[in-house]
């Protein structure tokens, strides 16, 4: 087997050095009643040829572009990944490297992550960012736990327009240690309703997603002002589509204390939902309470600039049960991928790409309105929007599916009061031609 270099001769000689006669002898320290009696019942071993065939067959059983025209976002977005990004991140010095605990031979990873942290602060208008969390959902959960640690309060409020899966994750993380999670309703215009929130002094944080699950851009400034009426409550914002921030105002400029979200859109393949990238940033005054790894700039003993993991005393391997989080491995390679992607787009490029995405979705939206679809929420959107179709749309949806068009997703399972409402998405990868074809199919 090509992954195992030992010849029979090697094994024999090495056993001699150890003073044993067979490989089985190595395991006599394991009590007999702990040793497995049977062989592993697994398929294979497959040759490289067989493996390739097997995996190609599995990959064929997936509905993906260009064969399928998919108009769906909801937390996973199809954006083109430049070939240069693919090739650079494929360099094995990046992906076969370990966590950079030995900085002298990990400066590539360390400078790369330092740049990632900086780009995140620039994109979101915040002071500091960590080296990443697992995904947008766990980043949000950790942000709320951080707010709870800082304020010493036990309640948080989250908008019901945060992605339903993220809310599910938040509840899982917060109920275990016994904290309370309240959901804020939404208004007629498709944004969060904060009017009913009284006794803010009980809340560690209030979390709002923008653009929210309906694709609507929230008025973060006004939300922030309401929330900061209590001096201690933290304003947490979250996102699932960071490309929006190439176009709209940053959460940092609108008063956010902690910003978190999903970075998949920026150079990371969708891959059925993972691996993703949990982006996490906050104001500098909360730095010591921040979870996750941090890369800092320093000098080596010859005065040369270098980078190193720092403030590790917050983390599990030192603080153990008093750590700011239990996180160890993060999403290092994905963070580096995002930095590469943004390095290629630059500021001007990101703006152009973001505006194009906005316009593609607007085109689809207007096109659907022209054929009678109802847009129930009167708030500007980015990339995604909700459409209210007639009650028989399910038939159209299934007919479109047979034509290999995925016409969004029904949201009534998440919002029972919104029957016949569908969430649609168009990115720079959906052509005008495809959108026109879709609109034609939907025309009554």
């Amino acid at each position, binding site marked *: 087997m090509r*992954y*195992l270099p*030992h010849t029979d001769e*090697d094994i024999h000689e*090495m056993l001699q050095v*150890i003073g044993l006669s067979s*490989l089985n002898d*190595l395991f006599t320290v*394991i009590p007999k009643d702990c040793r*497995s009696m049977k*062989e592993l*019942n*697994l*398929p294979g*071993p497959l040759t490289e040829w067989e493996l390739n065939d097997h995996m190609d067959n599995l990959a*064929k059983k*997936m509905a993906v572009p260009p064969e399928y025209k998919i108009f*769906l976002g*909801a937390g*996973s977005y199809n954006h083109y990944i430049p070939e*240069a990004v693919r090739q650079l991140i494929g360099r094995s*010095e990046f992906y076969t490297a370990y966590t950079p605990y*030995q900085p002298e031979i990990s*400066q590539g990873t360390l400078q790369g992550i330092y740049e990632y*942290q900086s780009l995140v602060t*620039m*994109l979101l208008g915040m002071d*500091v960012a960590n080296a990443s969390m697992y995904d947008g959902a*766990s980043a949000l959960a950790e942000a709320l736990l951080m707010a709870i640690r800082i304020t010493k309060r036990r309640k948080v409020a989250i908008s019901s327009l945060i992605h339903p899966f993220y809310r599910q994750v938040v509840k899982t993380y917060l109920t275990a*240690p016994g904290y309370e999670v309240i959901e804020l309703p939404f208004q007629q215009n498709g944004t969060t309703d904060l009017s009913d929130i009284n006794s803010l002094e009980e809340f560690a944080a209030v979390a709002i997603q923008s653009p929210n699950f309906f694709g609507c851009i929230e008025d973060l400034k006004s939300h922030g002002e309401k929330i900061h009426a209590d001096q201690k409550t933290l304003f947490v914002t979250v996102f699932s589509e960071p490309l929006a921030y190439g176009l709209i105002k940053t959460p940092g400029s609108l008063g956010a204390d902690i910003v978190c979200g999903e970075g998949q859109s920026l150079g990371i393949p969708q891959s*059925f*939902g*993972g*691996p993703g990238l949990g982006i996490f940033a906050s104001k500098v005054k909360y730095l010591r309470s921040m979870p996750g790894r941090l890369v800092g700039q*320093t*000098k*080596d003993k010859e005065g*040369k600039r270098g980078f190193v993991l720092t403030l590790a005393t917050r983390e*599990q*391997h030192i*603080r153990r*049960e008093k750590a700011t*989080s239990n*996180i160890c491995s*993060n999403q*290092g390679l994905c963070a580096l991928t995002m*930095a590469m992607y943004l*390095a*290629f787009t*630059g*500021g*001007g*490029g990101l*703006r*152009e790409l973001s505006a*194009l995405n906005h316009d593609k979705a*607007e085109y689809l939206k207007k096109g659907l309105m022209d054929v009678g679809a109802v847009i129930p929420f009167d708030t*500007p959107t980015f990339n995604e929007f909700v459409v209210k179709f007639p009650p028989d749309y399910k038939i159209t949806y299934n007919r479109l*599916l047979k034509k290999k068009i995925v016409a969004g*997703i029904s949201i009534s399972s998440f919002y029972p009061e919104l029957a016949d409402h569908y969430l649609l998405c168009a990115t720079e990868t959906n052509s005008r031609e495809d959108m026109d074809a879709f609109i034609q199919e939907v025309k009554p």
Partner: protein
Amino acid sequence: MKEHLATTGLSLNEPLLWEKAKKGRSGFSMPTRDVDTFPIDSHFLGDIPELPDLSELDVVRHYTRLSQWNYGVDSGMYPLGSCTMKYNPKVNERQASLHGFTLSHPMLPSELSQGILTMMFHLERYLSEITGLPAVTLQPAAGAQGELTGMMIVKAFHKYSGSERKKILIPDTAHGTNPASSAICGFTPIPVKSNEQGILSVERVELVMDEDVAGIMITNPNTLGLFEENIRKISDIVHSKGGLVYVDGANMNAVMGIVNMGDVGVDIMHLNLHKTFSTPHGGGGPGSGPVCVAEKLEPFLPVPRIVEKDGSYFLSQDFENSIGKLHAFYGNAGVLIKAYSYIISMGSMLKKASQLAVLNANYLKEKLKDTFYLPYDRTCMHECVFSDKLQEKYRVTTLDIAKRLMDYGFHPPTVYFPLVIHGAIMVEPTESESRETLDLFVEACRSIADEASQNPKVLFEAPIIPRSRRMNETEAARHPYLAR
């Protein structure tokens, strides 16, 4: 004169992205616009992001140079204890890059995602076979998240049975994620000291086990590279008082096909796919930490679960006692594909991999035990722990030894962990390393031990060959400089 592994070479300096940027440059190919512009409300319109602008070649050279400052498994041996830095097969990268997988949306109807769902369902079965525990979740995105999942399941199980227990027993050799994960769940970690043989003793567990203890978190083999020989009896004691046995499977590479965890009384364990199952470490992730459980804990697994019906696979939320969800979608699918590919490429040869990993570790133990102090001179599993005790008299520390190893072309082993050994040096070669590489490593260690006694200054100055010398970590921590 024999050539050393490490040598000097042409290494290029490279500034930060914004130091070489020039406004107006671009490295991105914008698609042709085929729709009109739709202006956005000025209330929402932000400024153009202040990201650095670079040309395509600027960025390509930037990251190429950065990569050349790094050391990866592909460069050389990484004997990091408890990390299992084995070879990352290239063919697995090919599988994860197939368009059918990379372009797949997680919220399509199940019928349109049969490829990945089939893979995930079977991966669950294979991990179940390897661990001997019947039910599996692939959702946790890393080992630590797997531990958190495990702790939540333990909590849910007791709540469901009507007893709200507050304590978790954790050996003093445990990895920091163990107490951290249990604390996040609201448990109080109770430390249990290992005995003089470096393993848990039945008596000490019995002393602290009571009906307020929800369970015990054991790493097996433990972080000293020793098999927890008393695990069966310990499981019995814990079970007798209604507790659960959690195993941290980070060291599974020593016992695949050799120990069936389900049989020895384990109720729940997590695996690290980026360790035992060859998926790349990525410079700090992404990893994957599936959790395998005994039948009585199956109802509590996170949702959605993959169910099979008439030969097709579906995602189901229909489990009312589930602890909930930990990942936005279903886990790190891109990582799962690589582990799956590895498992079917190896088949029952996984056992051989474990045997050879243990062979390599014991070989190093024998060859180095006169060079570095070996606290436990017995057959080890896939890793062994040394210390700097023999070098103390020269004022040379574990840190110095680690730094000097880089000058010899090796990534240092894990240092200062586990905490129970002062100045610990934890060496795990993995089965990927050939005897020749191991011999080179032994030679380097012996040379360093000689330098310690004859010329320690060269150790205090190490490393001298890599791009950077030792970093001023104090300054980095006193005055954190974390972004531009």
